[in-house]
């Protein structure tokens, strides 16, 4: 749940998606999408899968 937690990065511009850790997230926010080069918004990151029990 902390430190090494994997997030899913999904680029809204090129559609690339990949699992990332915290340093990767920082780098993507600072340097843009590694694949297409466009700036990355905070909203491009999400938990890899929903917890399951609280779907509404």
């Amino acid at each position: 749940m902390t430190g090494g937690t994997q997030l899913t990065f999904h680029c809204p511009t090129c559609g690339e998606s990949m699992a990332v850790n915290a340093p990767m997230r920082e780098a993507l926010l600072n340097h843009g999408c590694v694949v297409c080069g466009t700036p990355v918004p905070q909203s491009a990151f999400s938990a890899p899968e929903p917890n399951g029990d609280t779907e509404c």
Partner: protein
Amino acid sequence: MTVEQQTVMTGAETDALLGRHETGVLSLARGDEPYAVPISYGYDAGTRQFCMRLVSTPGSQKRRFLTDAPLVRFVVYEETEAAYCSVIADGRLERLPKSELTADHVKRYGTAKRPLFEMWGEPKAELTIDLYELDPEELSGRRIEVD
């Protein structure tokens, strides 16, 4: 005719030229069939490596030439009133699997411009952007002074 003087650029001059440009021409080959394409790149003077994003569509000519580690020549040149300079890098273009990307790669690719010459008009699903690195076996620059 004017007298042209050709000199070999120093490593620092070569690095500087590559640092102030963002685009060059990448040449690939298959048998005796040549293929050259203008691309944008990033250059790390510390490691003397290039990073590149190559965009292709299914069945595109470029994709036919992009095997996993093709031998390539990459050329960057500039022309000023006083001189004509060119840098030539020869080596193997290594594909960078997206699953192996690190924060360091993200930083390096951050210095490379978006693929300026590429076909962003295509439907996005049709486009494949692959990341490549070139660690040249040979990297040399030349200057021709024009009087």
